[in-house]
């Protein structure tokens, strides 16, 4: 018998999709029984009260969580988000219900040993509820009390060799796609770069010195599986400079229907026989392909590496050998000034340890943003406010037509005095000799 009735939430137990309500109810029961005799360090009815307060929100259509307040672990400015219930008397188990962000490993690969250690820790010192994973990528420990924060941190660092992630106005835990670990499209080792930068910038991650949050995300190719172009202040997206490699025999196998096109992704409907002309050549955004006499040709100079043809025929077409990445900057969600996607700052850069060139770009961007950014101004907003040209000036990167989808359509060029012959100082009296009033 649960502590609170949850008639509304109970209706979310039916249906095929995994029910978080069922999961939570089972956990609540398990904690109530406590067959393993765990010495819970926070109230054992925390899950029941969480269900109770959520049911109340379903009933009255509003949240019952209050602002965070400042809680955290000593010396860190992020990693913990304070959370308090606004009905603590009715739901004392969740009166304090703080979040801890645990930095996730690259590619989100795990051993069960590691996960079970996390579970043991969190069963003892927290609610037993997690997010796998939070929006930015961290493992989220959902709900504990203030005294447990340092304890959890101590056990994480001492017993598991594991740190907290970022929150607040600092570098957020960088996230990557699966990359070369299990993907043939990856143009660079996303996990290696992500890990290297994460370790290099631990200070920025834990001790806020930024105007606002800052996100790195690492996509191995333009397919963009971690959505870095939409979500990261700095997106690192793999690309290549040379030719797509064609295996003409494999092309023939696709045309002949021996290989499933698009890696089988469209198998749920009968779309008819694979038609290389219609499905590949005609859909190329730059029309740089030709299929004639059983041979596929690509004018690579006109290719924009959209990945479509490679996605459709992964066994026949391979990314090039001269690989690297593009850096885009400024993506963010709508608040406050409207959403932005990343804008292309570095069309191509090699991705080689120790990544000095990449770090140089990062640090120049940060120097500018820390100097000029206003409180709670994302990088994208600063670029908009001071201009893309200012970004180029501060990063000492040469302008390149690749940085724009089109040149400006307004002629409002802010010339600088040193660019204009004769400067700006002029003598009005001299002028008036030739131009009477």
């Amino acid at each position, binding site marked *: 018998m649960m502590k609170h009735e949850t008639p509304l*939430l109970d209706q979310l*137990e*039916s249906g095929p*999709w*995994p*029910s*978080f*309500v*069922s*999961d939570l109810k089972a956990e609540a029961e398990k904690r109530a029984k406590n067959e393993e005799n765990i*010495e819970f*360090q926070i109230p054992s009815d925390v899950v029941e009260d969480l269900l109770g307060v959520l049911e109340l929100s*379903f009933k*009255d*259509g*509003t*949240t019952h969580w*209050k602002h965070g307040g400042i809680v955290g672990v000593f*010396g860190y400015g992020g990693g913990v988000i304070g959370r308090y219930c606004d009905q603590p008397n009715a739901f004392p188990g969740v009166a304090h*219900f703080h979040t801890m962000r645990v*930095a*996730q490993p690259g*590619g989100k*690969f795990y051993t*069960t040993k590691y*996960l079970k250690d996390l579970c043991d820790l*969190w069963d*003892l010192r927290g609610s*037993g*509820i*997690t*997010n*796998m*994973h939070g929006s930015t990528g961290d493992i989220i420990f959902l709900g504990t009390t203030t005294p447990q924060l*340092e*304890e959890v941190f101590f056990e994480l*660092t*001492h017993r598991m*060799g594991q740190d907290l992630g970022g929150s607040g106005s600092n570098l957020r835990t960088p996230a990557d796609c699966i990359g*070369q*670990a*299990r*993907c*043939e499209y990856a143009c660079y080792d996303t996990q290696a770069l992500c*890990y290297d930068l994460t370790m290099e910038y*631990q200070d920025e991650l*834990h001790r806020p010195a930024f105007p606002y949050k800052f996100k790195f995300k690492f996509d191995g190719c333009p397919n963009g599986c971690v959505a870095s*172009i*939409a*979500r990261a202040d700095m997106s690192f997206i793999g690309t290549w400079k040379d030719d797509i490699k064609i295996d003409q025999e494999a092309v023939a196998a696709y045309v002949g229907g021996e290989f499933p096109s*698009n890696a*089988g*992704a*469209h*198998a*749920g*409907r009968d779309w008819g026989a694979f038609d290389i002309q219609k499905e590949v050549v005609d859909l190329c955004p730059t029309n740089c392909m030709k299929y004639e006499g059983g041979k596929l040709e690509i004018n690579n100079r006109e290719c924009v590496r959209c990945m479509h043809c490679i996605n459709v025929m*992964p*066994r026949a077409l391979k990314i090039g050998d001269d690989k690297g990445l593009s850096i885009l900057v400024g993506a963010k*969600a709508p608040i406050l000034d409207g959403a932005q996607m990343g804008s292309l700052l570095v069309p191509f850069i090699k991705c080689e340890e120790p990544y000095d060139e990449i770090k140089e770009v990062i640090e120049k961007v940060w120097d500018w943003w820390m100097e000029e950014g206003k409180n709670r101004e994302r990088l994208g907003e600063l670029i908009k406010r001071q201009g893309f040209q200012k970004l180029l000036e501060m990063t000492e990167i040469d302008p390149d037509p690749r940085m724009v989808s089109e040149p400006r359509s307004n002629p409002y060029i802010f010339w600088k005095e040193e660019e204009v012959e004769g400067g700006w100082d002029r003598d009005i009296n001299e002028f008036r000799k030739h131009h009477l009033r």
Partner: protein
Amino acid sequence: MAFISSGYDPKEPMKNRITDIGPKKFDEFYPPVIAKNKGKWLYHEILEPGILVHVAEGGDEVYTVRCGGARIMTTSLIREICEIAEKHCDGYLRFTTRNNIEFMVDDKSKVDALKKDLAGRKFAGGSFKFPIGGTGAGITNIVHTQGWIHCHTPATDASGTVKATMDEVFSDFQNMRLPAPLRISMACCLNMCGAVHCSDIAILGYHRKPPMLDHEYLDKLCEIPLAIAACPTGAIKPTKVDLPSGETVKSVAVNNERCMFCGNCYTMCPSLPLADKDGDGIVLMAGGKVSNRISEPKFSKVVVAFLPNEVPRWPQMTDTIKKMIEAYAADAKKYERLGEWAERIGWERFFEKCELPFTHHLIDDFRDPAYYTWRQSTQFKF
């Protein structure tokens, strides 16, 4: 319950302190077949919905079974996942960016037992614990935020709307009949922790009432200049208020006409709550994408300005989503993402085919760039 010390000494917080060690290094967690073949993968194939094979240069293969899951997850469920991974996968697993769980085996012969094991596990209420799917030209798991379960600014619930939606579109999680992948995302307020602004379909919580003013406490709980500066439209001004007690306090006044309900003031000042049962609800957006495939990445567009929070299953919301998906599935060309379809047929046709009303709310009026969304052409369809 007795306090169990980890070893941390609050009187000497720096003693033995370990900091800045970052996450675990990725390669500690690679299954052997991954570690061996990293960077040498040749190609992959989706064998059936939810089952992938990747083939490496030397001939090694890894078979992946992808399962959906709620991103809110108890340790009990994680332990169950571990049990499965130990039984079938030598103790390795991974999660995807969209909250799917992936179990990998290095031989085809191991796939069937794993599949059967996963498919057989159900929650007490009858729902699947580990539904297999989420690949290819179908619908995969919804990325989302916290909602009423843990956030102080939401205008709707996250886990509830997601469960209701995934139940409605479940067959497309386990099928690949769509013209292209369809990504649904959910954010419970427009802070958009989930960055849903580039999704094929986005569910967004939205407030519609300006903040209440808790004058009595405002100056005590908030820094008034920060609250004022937080407003993107400059709708908040400082003021003085006479309380019923006769006391005069510093507070703020809000120009309600200029409020766009973003809640940024509330984020800075808890004495300006917006949440309201009638005011809060759902905005639906559609047509975004992040991939650079064929066309460039696109923002999602607002296609339904408001739907009420109909707990516990948001039927108008799920019906509308379903309507969009069915119209898209019926009309789009192979490979065409939802937004590419809408652009090809024209948004006037999108509203017609999806049977959605076009209201004035859908016309952009936010700052200068709004102009670029109006039609500067005589090209349109009757």
